[in-house]
């Protein structure tokens, strides 16, 4: 890695001032795990890094709000994993974190960084999209709120402006929706996924009133599968319905291959894992 300057502002406003530049070699980090990998491989060569670790503690707070959650962007993934509020409001997040990278990475990586990095293999983006989560982005000009699903615009690309930071993530009350995230890893249990799929279902007995189905790790960004959702919406779950939902997802997703599987392989996985995710959500209880 090449030498660079490091700024350690004590406030979010101070960080935003440092980031208010057109220079693409100035970047912020939370835990610096993902950025370290990019710097080590030379993909990113910084002139100046802005550490967010010293800003006000409130930006790492996890709180229950009206049955949902408000999570400060600097909350570490470990803090989320151990949070009773998260387990109560959205236990699918707690379950997902168990195999999200490893303990050491979770101890330092932050939710904001996890989202802003926008690698489509990340585990929480599809889960947060399925849960209908939103985020607050701040800049010196003010703040705006957008759906997590609208954050991602492409591989490593987000809707955030150069001078914007994610400050909070908002998970709405789930009102009995049942959710699951399943992933297929081809090396270790905590490996980067070959395919990730999150579902959130609103059910009335065996009837699925509404469904959100989100695919990740096999597409250039986490994406909702509108056709698969349409198959599930208003249906009573049978093996035939699950098979049709899997077929629909496999047909509509624009899949891309990577080191962990070809596009053709991922298409077969998607066909199978879509049904598994729905089954797991239905079996998983109230959330």
């Amino acid at each position, binding site marked *: *890695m*090449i*030498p*660079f*300057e*490091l*700024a350690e502002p004590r406030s979010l406003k101070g960080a935003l001032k440092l980031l208010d530049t057109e220079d693409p070699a100035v970047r912020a980090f939370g835990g*610096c*795990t993902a950025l*370290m*990998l990019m*710097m*080590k491989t030379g993909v990113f060569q910084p002139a*100046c*890094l802005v*550490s967010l*670790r010293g800003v006000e503690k409130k930006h790492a707070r996890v709180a229950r709000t009206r049955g949902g959650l408000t999570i400060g962007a600097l909350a570490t993934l*470990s803090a989320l994993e151990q949070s009773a509020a998260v387990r109560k409001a959205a236990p699918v997040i707690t379950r997902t974190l*168990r*195999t999200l*990278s*490893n*303990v*050491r*990475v979770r*101890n*330092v990586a932050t939710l904001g960084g996890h989202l802003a990095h926008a690698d489509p293999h990340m585990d929480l983006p599809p889960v947060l999209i399925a849960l209908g989560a939103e985020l607050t982005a701040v800049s010196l000009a003010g703040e705006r709120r957008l759906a997590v699903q609208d954050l991602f615009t492409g591989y490593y690309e987000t809707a955030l402006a150069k001078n914007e930071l994610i400050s909070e993530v908002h998970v709405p009350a789930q009102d009995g929706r049942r959710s699951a995230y399943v992933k297929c890893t081809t090396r*270790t*249990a*905590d490996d980067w996924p070959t395919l990730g799929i999150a579902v959130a279902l609103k059910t009335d007995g065996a009837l699925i009133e509404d469904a959100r189905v989100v695919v990740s790790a096999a597409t250039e960004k986490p994406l909702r599968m509108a056709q698969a959702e349409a198959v599930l919406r208003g249906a009573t779950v049978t093996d035939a319905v699950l098979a049709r939902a899997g077929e629909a997802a496999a047909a509509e997703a624009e899949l891309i291959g990577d080191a962990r599987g070809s596009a053709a392989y991922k298409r077969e996985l998607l066909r199978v894992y879509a049904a598994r995710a729905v089954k797991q959500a239905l079996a998983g209880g109230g959330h």
Partner: protein
Amino acid sequence: MTTHRTIEFTLNGRPVSAQVGNHHNLVEVLQDQGLFGARESCAQGLCGCCTVIVDGKAVSGCLTLAPLIDGADVRTVEEPRGEHGLDAVQQAFIETGAFQCGFCTPGFVLMTRQLLDAHPNPSDDEIRHYLSGNLCRCATYPEVIKAVHLAANKRKTAGKD
């Protein structure tokens, strides 16, 4: 601002000061201090060979920027523990033969201590999940699981050391 700085931190209980580049990582800092227990192996935070305990939490030394440990409490496998310099976890790894070449062992020992602090009586499933980010190329995983159970028992009978 400059690209290098002096940092001060506590290393295995003793205060130290070091000249570091902002782009250096914690493993390099430790090597400059003459400590080689934390090794950079995969360089991606996946293998656990570079595990270091910073302010009570396990981190990957290879992913930790040196300037960020300014003021921190840093502990490595070299920290003397127990009566003969070895704690219950190290004793258990020796008694069960939970290594062959030993390259990954410092990371496994440090992670096992963290695991047992959080879960004094872990199930096989908890052990596998907690240590999933530690790779042993000699594949001593079955012995590692035995070692963790043995260490848990040793801690219970002797009291945590």
